[in-house]
């Protein structure tokens, strides 16, 4: 057994020779049992990364190892929910779950899948084409969790849900993941919705890894600094600094104690992510690298 859920080395994917690569030289390592938030601006390569890990695309460069093997060999042990929650519109909900049973005969857990459907007050006889976006998401998640995956890849899973359903489904998902030690990778660009449920972060920008590592370590590595305009931030790595009037606000990775006149605060996840999104040239910080970058 391996303790690594996903490991990428020099991972790149190009769509067409003329276009910029969707992913370029990504290296990171996600340990087992983590709930990882995958975030980044639109077009950062989140969906491409998930599709590569799910074995739906072949990398044009580098490798991605999933559950200690190739994505194709790990197919039976991973589940993937695509951004548009594809389901067969002509099937009923019960038919969709039966499809999950037929296609995953060695793993299917009907109770889990049915419970998730029942929690949404859905009638199993309803055709998929008659469902709302949020209801489809629920069925897609039921299909994914019914497979009892060791690794669950979710592309924008909560985008279609109302706040209540989002809260409820996230809770179901997290309880299930905690019960079975499932590794979850969840992409989203709504950072706030990730903070409570995730313990690992992967921030992509322009196809590259900008931040990677356990959430608490990443937050601890950054300090939100306020001071007077003109104060030197020198030995520290500055992610982003802004001056408003005579006030200086900056997000830095401190290299030592802060200088005089500077006041340091612990930033929130949202502040760290937003600062990196606003400053695309800030150096990446990879706290999970170990030997992944080899």
């Amino acid at each position, binding site marked *: 057994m391996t303790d690594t859920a996903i490991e990428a080395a020099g991972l790149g994917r190009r769509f067409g020779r003329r276009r910029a690569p969707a992913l370029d030289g990504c290296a990171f390592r996600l340990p087992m049992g983590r709930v990882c938030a995958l975030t980044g601006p639109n077009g950062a390569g989140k969906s491409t990364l998930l*599709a590569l890990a*799910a*074995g*739906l*695309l*072949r*990398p044009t460069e580098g490798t991605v190892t999933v559950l200690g093997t*190739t*994505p*194709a*060999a790990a*197919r*039976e042990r*991973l*589940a*993937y929910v*695509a951004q*548009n929650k*594809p*389901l*067969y519109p*002509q*099937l*009923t909900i*019960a*038919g969709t*779950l*039966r*499809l*999950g*049973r*037929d*296609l*995953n*005969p*060695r*793993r*299917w857990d*009907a*109770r889990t899948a*049915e419970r998730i*459907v029942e929690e949404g007050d859905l009638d*199993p*006889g309803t055709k998929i084409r008659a469902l709302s976006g949020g209801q489809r998401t629920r069925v897609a998640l039921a*299909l994914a969790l019914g*497979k009892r995956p060791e690794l669950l890849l979710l592309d924008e899973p909560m985008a279609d849900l109302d706040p209540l359903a989002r809260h409820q489904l996230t809770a179901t998902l997290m309880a299930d993941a905690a019960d079975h030690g499932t590794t979850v990778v969840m992409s989203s660009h709504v950072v706030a919705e990730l903070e409570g449920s995730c313990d690992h972060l992967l921030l992509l920008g322009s196809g590259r890894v900008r931040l990677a590592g356990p959430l608490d370590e990443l937050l601890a590595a950054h300090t939100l600094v306020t001071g007077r305009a003109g104060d030197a931030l020198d030995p520290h790595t500055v992610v982003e600094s802004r001056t408003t009037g005579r006030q200086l606000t900056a997000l830095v990775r401190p290299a030592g104690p802060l200088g005089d006149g500077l006041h340091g605060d612990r930033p929130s996840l949202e502040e760290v992510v937003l600062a990196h999104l606003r400053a695309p040239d800030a150096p990446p910080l990879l706290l999970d690298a170990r030997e992944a970058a080899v």
Partner: protein
Amino acid sequence: MTALDTLTTPAVPRRTSPSRGLVLAMLRLHRSALLFWLGLVVVAAGALLWAMGPGADAAWTEYTDTGCDLSHPNLGCDIPGPANSRYQTAVAVGIGLIRLLPLLTGAWAAGALIGRELENGTAQLAWTQSVGPLRWLAAKLAVPAVLLMAGTLTLTLLHRMLWSSDLAPLGVMSWRAWYDDGTFEINGTIAAAQALAALAIGVLVGLLLRRTLPALGVAVLAVVSLVYVLDEVRPHLWPVKTAVRGLEDGTAGSDSMIVETGALTASGARVPIPSCSGEPGCDARNGITHYYADYHPASHFWPLQLMETGLLLAVAALAAATAFVLLRRRTGAAV
């Protein structure tokens, strides 16, 4: 609730293989296509069976009642009576449905079977269950192929029965020749092979274009072109026999597929039949000594059938292999 309750029962993992599940899933997902195909086979088979039994009897009774089977038939015998028309219509329906089949198969395979799944992402849904893309593709090819073969071969057998009885008493009032396109295709292995080729082409086009409507259009175009080209090429798939006759002789065999006719000069060179042919002295003026005809006798039926079937199966195999290579390259899938 009842539908779910039946699913709840097994707490132990089932022993069924994903391949069996995949076939079941395929049949359920494409149930309407399956029902359509069953309906089409039933209608075509019904038409042929009716023609063979009551249709033929009625037409024959009509024929004898009007005295057309006697030695002095009247001119009215050249015009089919209503019973004969009904018989001809039933046969035409049977053959017409079979001739439509490659087109329908290609359109369905490209659009509904593959293109739509890739367009709205349900293919990716299937590939992230326990079956990989290649097994998915194998099921997409194999399940419809088996059903198409079963249906077409049934219709072929029925039509061969009809055709053998057709030649006996009804031969005199039916104007079909063994080499007519529709008759030729349904009487042998070609109809089934056409369906298989159309399926493979449709699947390949669907994979290439990944969208329902463009794939449907291109596949129909490709299948129609293939059928058309093979109709044109058919006479050249087996060496012809040549009949040569002198200027005064009668014609060569009537039950033959004539491929080419022309005239011969004294040196044996083949020249086109002159436009004055038939006028006195015309042949001599143009130095023509004989006429010739390249033709396929009825005994060439099976060689021609098997050559064309071979070509169609080669096209099907090539398209299917390309589809596998393409999907494998795209997804990096093992099996």
